[in-house]
């Protein structure tokens, strides 16, 4: 393999990886606050894309994206209040199934609202064929937007969770709900907040990736599976690890193209993931002690 080709695969892998990572981060926020995986996370990504595309007819792009993020955050909050908030100590399995149900509902709703055809936001900078070159490798500027968004999110979340009172309360709530409540933290509001936050992040992800991947009513499910995979591979709850795992999976997929038929790409990359999981049952960067506290 020539050096050229190597770098082309590498950058393709980074493109895939940053898309997976940006979805995985949303999983981690809710997991951190509640200990559950929200299977409707992919639908937040789809909603973000769809709403911003619809808003774009009435306002400029930055406003449309902001509007989509706010509206999706509202939807996230609404979902939490309607379906999760009032449950008395629900089991994790029950919550998983509820979120699967919500994901199905949101998808079908989107089908009947927006129809089945594909849509996309315009490229933020340039158009479909604009690229800049790194040596012999060409890269779309939109990929840079995705990577930047990813970095900003991880950085912002780190500051939020470690540096702000609300962030610390959320973490406390995740570590031990009862103890957090005894300390005077309104744990229910924290859960609502975590849903809003992850919905907003999902929506933002949906906007920045829309020019690359397009948005369709059912694009959420496959993204969610990849995002979930990446979140697990990194070790649940750790956003930095999710980014690392996302890029790893992306690169794995990109390079696998050179040796196996593309059709088997997913089978191969997931088989490798499973092997990793068997050797390190709590993800690449997760600690077994921490994970033991949260199992259902």
């Amino acid at each position, binding site marked *: 393999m020539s050096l050229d080709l190597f770098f082309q695969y590498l950058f393709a892998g980074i493109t895939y990886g940053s898309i997976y990572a940006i979805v995985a981060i949303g999983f981690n926020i809710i997991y951190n606050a509640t200990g559950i*995986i929200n299977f409707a996370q992919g639908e937040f990504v789809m909603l973000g894309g769809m709403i911003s595309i619809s808003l774009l007819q009435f306002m400029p792009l930055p406003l449309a994206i902001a509007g989509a993020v706010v509206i999706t955050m509202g939807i996230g909050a609404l979902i939490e209040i309607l*379906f999760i908030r009032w*449950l008395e100590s*629900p*089991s*994790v*399995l*029950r919550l*998983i*199934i*509820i979120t*699967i*149900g*919500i*994901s*199905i*509902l949101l*998808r*079908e*709703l989107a*089908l009947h609202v927006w129809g089945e055809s594909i849509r996309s936001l315009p490229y933020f900078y340039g158009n479909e064929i604009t690229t800049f070159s790194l040596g012999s490798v060409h890269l779309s500027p939109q990929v840079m937007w995705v990577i930047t968004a990813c970095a900003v999110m991880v950085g912002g979340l780190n500051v939020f969770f470690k540096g702000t009172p609300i962030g610390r309360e959320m973490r406390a709530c995740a570590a031990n709900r009862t103890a957090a409540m005894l300390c005077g933290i309104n744990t229910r509001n924290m859960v609502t907040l975590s849903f809003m936050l992850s919905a907003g992040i999902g929506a933002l992800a949906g906007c920045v990736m829309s020019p690359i991947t397009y948005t369709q009513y059912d694009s959420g*499910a496959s993204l969610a*599976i990849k995002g*979930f*995979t990446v979140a*697990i591979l990194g070790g*649940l709850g750790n956003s930095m690890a999710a980014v690392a795992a996302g890029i790893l999976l992306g690169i794995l997929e990109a390079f696998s193209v050179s040796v196996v*038929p593309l*059709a*088997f*790409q*997913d*089978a191969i990359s*997931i*088989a490798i*993931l*499973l092997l990793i*999981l*068997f050797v390190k*049952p*709590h*993800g690449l960067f997760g600690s077994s002690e921490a*994970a033991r506290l*949260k*199992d*259902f």
Partner: protein
Amino acid sequence: MKRRKNLAIAALCLAAVCVHLLTLLTGTQFYLTQATMAAYYGLVIIGLGALMGYAGQISIGHAGFFAIGGYLAASLTTRNLAVFQETWPLRGLDALNMLKTGQDLSGDLLLTVSPWAACGIAVTTAALIALVIGIPVLKLKGHYLAMATLGFGTIIYRILLASPYFGEADGISEVPGFTLLPAMGTLGPIVVSGDAGLRVVNYYLAWGVLIVGTLLLLNLIGSRVGRALRSLHSSEEAAEAAGIDTSRFKLQVFVLSAVYAAIAGVLLTHFNGGIGPSEASVMKSVRYVALVAVGGMTNLWGTLLMGVGLTFLSLRGVFGTYDDAVFGMILIFVMLFAPEGILSLRLKLFFQKIFLGARS
């Protein structure tokens, strides 16, 4: 307790006969087609129910086992093996009288595996795969277990979708019927196939398989192993402390549920005359999990009734383009208001009286 169980099984048999008679009286026998299909899906669902409810293990990959059964049965009974005629596996099969010869469209030799042998190979393969992946997978917990089973299902789906041998996106069609018993005396042959003339036979066959499957599971649940299983669901640590080899039990139930799924896959494929990749998709696995949840995880009868009932309605297209939406709604509703399954609502008392045998 045992008598109640037998009573319940008898009631189920009676219900199956009554449904047939009812359709006969009203001239609506075409309902039996979907009732047959739903019964096979019911077999997958009760197997998964035992795994989720009694062994406490989630599996978002059971459509994979169904597909292994269905696809192997379909490919072995349709793909021409004439070019491999002289290789040792085929000679072995031939020696066991497990090959079927015929002519293809252009009159050349068509060599396929007989349905019985194909069924055996398919179910054994599914069991072996369940055994091999079950050992590492069942060591995982919680979301990691969900991920691993989801991953397994995805791998199977991808392989089927990428392999020309399995028909890629088109799947396999023109699968022949499966002659279980040849014609004897005045009795017609028992063939698993979608022919309109064999509808009633197939209906009873499917329900027979489902009832036998239920009976076996009920026995398992009532046995010492079953009590161990139930303790697994409530507390694995406690079960281990009581000297129960939990990992072995989990593995046994996992393999058993995989075998159920594979058998359902084989039979339904012969009944439908084909199979497509949608049978292996993640959505299908999620659907099985959801149906188990709707029925109530530690309630075999609830799982059976809801699984068969909802699948029947879905196969008839009652919900139109809202099929998935209705399904999602039921899922949320049941999980919000009746997490023990829909039968735990006001019907509970009524059903408990009749079906107490199935409950703890």
